[in-house]
């Protein structure tokens, strides 16, 4: 039995290896495209990053570049540095994409700068990097203001206890969203630290707890279960992305509390907009990773053609939506629509933030 099983496993392994080799040896589509290659750092397999890549590819195809993907599925700083070195060695005209974190950016930007390869990053803005040689710029949502309209919506529609389910704290984005939400909610006290409890709207709302959902749906499910157990009269919850919002909603449905608790979120993912249309997600602040990716390549092209200078911060287009205006959200899948790609390729380039915040 063992030898037969071994033969089966060996056959499967051989087939997979053969398929992989065939994949490697096939020339990538568009390899001979004219303006050169843009290396794209893909940190992790999350849908957000995948769609950012697809947006970049859509723009690159229009502008005559090839996008070569350097993936980093385990979000490893050392892999990122190796990817940057490999991209430089392969003759990339520019580097685009997502760094795995603020600390890693130092080495990434330094390597690109040394080689004279311009680099543009989506998210991870730090004032320390903006003026370094070869940095074209950063693009991301304006973190704190992104959370404000969601908090203002909650303030207008909810009375009582409110909770927050954050992503992973420590990178700045989760904290920034929460600060914006608490500001919009009208909380008094240290909204930047975000430590509960805080009194909001003169006592009409009380911010009672923050739990992390690690950006993941299953973790948000557990967090929501625990929060609703501790605060059975909870009136509202802000969940910092829609993947987690789906998990929180599922937990509330299981606890028969979905009619009681108002959920608001951010991102504008396809399943988030489905939730807004269905009514269980009351409001969300949206941005499109595909549009961010598309804009990143447009900005790189403008830089390479000396139409813009480097060292700038750009804020992504965002749209706060409720059930009545979901069409305001730019689709995450705009790359599937040639008409939408043409539309966003022809709008004016993003304008840089005049004085990037320190």
């Amino acid at each position: 039995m063992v030898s037969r099983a071994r033969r089966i496993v060996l056959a499967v392994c051989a087939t997979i290896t053969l398929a992989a080799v065939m994949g490697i040896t096939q020339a990538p589509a568009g390899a001979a495209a004219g303006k050169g290659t843009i290396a794209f750092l893909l940190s992790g397999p999350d849908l957000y990053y995948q769609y950012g890549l697809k947006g970049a590819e859509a723009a690159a195809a229009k502008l005559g570049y090839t996008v070569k993907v350097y993936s980093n599925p385990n979000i490893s700083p050392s892999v990122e540095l190796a990817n940057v070195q490999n991209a430089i060695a392969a003759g990339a005209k520019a580097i685009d994409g997502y760094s795995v974190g603020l600390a890693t950016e130092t080495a990434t930007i330094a390597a690109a700068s040394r080689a004279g390869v311009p680099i543009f990053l989506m998210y991870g803005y730090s004032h320390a990097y903006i003026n370094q040689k070869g940095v074209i710029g950063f693009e991301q949502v304006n973190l704190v203001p992104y959370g404000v309209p969601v908090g203002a919506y909650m303030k207008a529609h909810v009375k009582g206890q409110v909770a927050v389910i954050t992503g992973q704290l420590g990178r700045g984005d989760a904290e920034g969203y929460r600060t914006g939400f608490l500001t919009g909610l009208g909380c008094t006290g240290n909204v930047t630290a975000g430590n509960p409890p805080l009194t909001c709207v003169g006592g009409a709302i009380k911010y009672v707890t923050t739990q992390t959902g690690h950006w993941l749906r299953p973790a948000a499910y557990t967090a929501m279960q625990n929060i609703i157990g501790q605060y059975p009269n909870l009136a509202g919850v802000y969940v910092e992305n829609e993947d987690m919002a789906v998990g929180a909603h599922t937990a509330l449905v299981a606890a028969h509390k979905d009619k009681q608790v108002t959920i608001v979120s951010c991102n504008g993912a396809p399943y988030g907009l489905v939730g807004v249309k269905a009514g269980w997600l009351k409001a969300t602040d949206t941005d499109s990773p595909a549009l961010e990716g598309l804009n990143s390549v447009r900005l790189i092209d403008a830089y390479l053609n000396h139409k813009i200078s480097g060292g700038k911060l750009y804020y992504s287009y965002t749209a706060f939506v409720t059930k009545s205006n979901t069409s305001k959200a730019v689709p995450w899948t705009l790359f599937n629509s040639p008409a939408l790609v043409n539309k966003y390729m022809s709008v004016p380039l993003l304008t840089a933030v005049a004085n990037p915040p320190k």
Partner: protein
Amino acid sequence: MSGTESALKEAPQAPRKLLARARLRGVDVYGVWPVAVMVLIVVATSFRSDRYFTINNFENILSQIAPLGIVTMGQTVLLISAGLDLSVGYNIAFSSIVTGLLLEHGHPLLLAVAVGIAAATAVGFVNGVLAAQNRAHPFIITLGMSIFLFGLDTQLTGGAPVNDMKGLYTAFGGYLPSGLPFFGLPSVVIPFVVVLLLAFAFLRWTPLGRRAYAIGGNEEAAYLSGIPVKRTKIYLYTLMGLLVGVTGMVLAGQINEASFNLAQNFELESIACAVIGGTALFGGRGGAFRSLQGVALYGIVQNAIVFAGLSSNYQQMALGAIIIIAVMVTRAQR
């Protein structure tokens, strides 16, 4: 003569050995320390929050530990046989994705579930063959499988989750009827209890279960005594794959999602729970109900931190500390 008295009579032995055999009124102190810690946490948290000690909250804890509990039973069996499986997280995701994609394309629920579980079982079989045939440690073999599955999961979904598990959500997304015999428990508890009892019976009363202990205790001796070591390993890893498939169905049904990150960290959490419960990392010792203690402690700590009003960062600190204590206790036991 009580166990403590008999331990004290062995005066020449080193104090550590005495402690290792210490018994309190016939109860193995080392065996029940997770229960003692759980009681402490429950009592302490009950004082901090009047909503903690409620049926509703304990139902929540049960529903939170059930999927992890199922896979921990499989991990326990493997650990007892001196194996382990680091591919469970992405194998759970794989089985859920296979089922989710089939459901999305309109295939019947039973077929989708069967194929999903079969897919995970096949992965377990391959792990078993590789672990049995190679002298490499299963750590590296299953790590390789985990990386392979991570890529496969992402390729199958493109990073996008399957958002509607249809009949699976109906089955595992809610609660059982209130009153006898289910008392309104979360429905995910049923597969967990079934797997727990089967794992207990498997380890206690089946030849394959006894072989797992023998191989974990001393593989060479087991081989020399006529146990078909390689075949047994293949069976055990395949069984693990089956349980992973079941976990995939339960978890995907509970969360109503199939995605590559559905069961992130389950591989390490399941090993941690088994070790906390007293299953030895290097084989030969452990049991289903011991691992139940580990899973329960894990869930109770996560939940209690919320009710104690502490930051969720403390969850990680507390869980890390408990794992370290568990390893120290296990070593002292030896």
